[in-house]
């Protein structure tokens, strides 16, 4: 009979000359059931030489009945401490330090580690182990928050247990009016798995308050917006693009106009994360589209302090201010995507931010020739902000499937369509809106004859993209204020 030994449930390891063995098991594991008699054998033989065996049970400690040093590890503290991913795991400690470990059941290894020849005679040579409960879905992050060092620097906000964290987010002014996902530490750690960038890396300063924004702050807002971790590279690149001076994020936020940052994604990542480029492309229902665009808005609100009625002076605002994000439809190779036309490789993933108010549809079920379709487009595009408005206006034209076919069938390139439209969008000076100070934004030469023609996009950009469904002869204009040198589209590659 061995002597009674105090029951030990801590990680304090007495300094013993003879080795101490630490085993991790769960009853719900056939290999652990197979190995339990072996553990009893080890306890007896090791005990004779002054050694000791501790068995930590992850589910039901009664599974180890008869073992002197059996511990209930349902809280998984010891399993986490020893970084267990498989049961059974047998660890040998020497002088309190681990010097050998075996996982699953392999007789030769167990014999070698314990130094007990003939151990487990009659058992199969090999049986794989089962997953440790520390590896259950969601458990690694939960345990890291509970027992580890998360490295997260943000202020912790305690919500009383019986209060609703969603309501706390509202009370603190963190939402756009819709509910947000409460940013817990567990969700944050999972979100940060989506990027290799360090949590404390500074992405930039967010207007209007020019507050420093770290990867960690982006991730918190991404959690709240409903992102999955794999969206993080797109989110981070979108924010960096929006912070490029040419985009003029402060102006887009502060203006009385309804415009807001629109996020367009090109390249393989759009497909990889399941973004929508086709039917209902600008609408609801796609998680990546909705959550990525919303994260940018929440970062501006929460980190930058940009809120409606304060620095955001928009007269109307727009539903697009909740989220406006989509992927360009790149499936038909006859037209280069927007990013490829800028010189990016088709294999590159990019994010473009541009200002947009929302959409205005163009319906033309009749035209079958590119010239006719362009005339329909031009009439609608000319009306942006008023038929005589030519300064500080820009637009993206999204051409959907059935309209694109008209151009494809006629062999028209995207550049040809653009050139045709710009040719049609010439406005006589007499029709240009003039203020008290006269025809602002026009040169003296242009003003010299009321029949002179001036471009609709006098100083703003005009671009064509492919997006939308394949049933219905529609296209859509995404209009905005903007102009070269003030508010411009900005594209960044996701690296």
């Amino acid at each position, binding site marked *: 009979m061995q002597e009674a030994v105090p029951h030990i449930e801590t990680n304090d390891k007495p300094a013993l000359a003879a080795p101490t063995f630490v085993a991790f098991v769960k009853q719900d594991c056939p290999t652990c059931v197979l190995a339990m008699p072996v553990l009893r054998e080890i306890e007896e033989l090791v005990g004779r030489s002054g050694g000791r065996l501790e068995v930590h049970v992850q589910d039901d400690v009664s599974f180890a009945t008869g073992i002197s040093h059996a511990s209930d590890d349902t809280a998984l503290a010891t399993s986490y401490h020893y970084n267990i991913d498989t049961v059974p795991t047998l660890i040998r400690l020497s002088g309190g330090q681990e010097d050998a470990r075996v996982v699953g059941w392999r007789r030769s290894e167990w014999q070698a580690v314990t130094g007990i020849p003939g151990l487990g005679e009659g058992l199969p040579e090999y049986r794989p182990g089962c997953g440790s409960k520390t590896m259950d879905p969601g458990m690694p992050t939960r345990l890291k928050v509970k027992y580890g060092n998360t490295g997260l620097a943000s202020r912790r906000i305690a919500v009383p247990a*019986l209060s609703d964290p969603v309501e706390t987010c509202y009370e603190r002014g963190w939402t756009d009016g819709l509910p947000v996902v409460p940013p817990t530490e567990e969700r944050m750690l999972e979100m940060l798995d989506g990027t290799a960038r360090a949590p404390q890396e500074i992405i930039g300063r967010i207007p209007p*308050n020019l*507050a420093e924004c770290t990867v960690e702050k982006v991730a918190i807002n991404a959690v*709240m917006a409903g992102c999955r971790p794999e969206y993080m590279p797109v989110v981070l690149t979108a924010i960096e693009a929006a912070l490029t001076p040419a985009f003029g994020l402060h102006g887009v936020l502060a203006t009385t106009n309804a415009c807001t940052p629109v996020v367009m994604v090109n390249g393989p990542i759009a497909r990889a994360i399941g973004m929508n480029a086709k039917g209902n492309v600008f609408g609801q229902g796609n998680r990546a589209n909705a959550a990525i665009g919303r994260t940018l808005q929440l970062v501006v609100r929460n980190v930058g302090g940009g809120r409606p009625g304060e620095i955001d002076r928009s007269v109307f605002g727009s539903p697009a201010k909740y989220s406006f994000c989509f992927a360009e439809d790149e499936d038909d190779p006859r037209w280069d995507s927007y990013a490829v036309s800028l010189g990016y490789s088709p294999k590159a993933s990019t994010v473009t931010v541009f200002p947009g108010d929302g959409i205005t549809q163009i319906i033309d079920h009749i035209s079958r020739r590119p010239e006719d379709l362009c005339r329909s487009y031009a009439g609608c595009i000319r009306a942006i902000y008023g038929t005589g408005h030519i300064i500080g206006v820009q637009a993206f034209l999204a051409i959907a499937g059935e309209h694109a076919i008209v151009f494809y069938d006629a062999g028209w390139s995207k550049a040809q369509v653009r050139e045709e439209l710009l040719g049609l969008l010439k406005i006589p000076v007499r029709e240009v809106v003039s203020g008290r100070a006269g025809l602002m934004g026009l040169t003296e030469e242009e003003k010299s004859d009321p029949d002179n023609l001036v471009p609709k996009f006098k100083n703003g950009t005009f671009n064509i993209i492919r997006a939308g469904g394949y049933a219905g002869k529609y296209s859509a204009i995404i209009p905005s204020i903007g102009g070269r040198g003030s508010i411009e589209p900005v594209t960044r590659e996701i690296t």
Partner: protein
Amino acid sequence: MPDNILLDPTAETAAAIAPRLARPSSIAGKTIGLFDIAKMRGDEFLDRLDELLTARGHTVKRYRKKHFTHLAPLELKQHIRSECDFVVEGLAD
């Protein structure tokens, strides 16, 4: 039951309310900067202010940033601060 812990999504700079600078009892002998943010027709307003102040014998200096959608560069703000006692800035049209 333990509290739920949330992480603060803000810049954690909830500003203490700063008191306004004391208003001067007189602007006599001071240099006044007029800062045009480049918003349309802001210059008309500032031109008129310039006329009125100059007529009263004040020293007026004019500044302008590149475009109203862009923040004034730090250097420009420092420049104004180094040359003026007060600045009048147009914020909108």
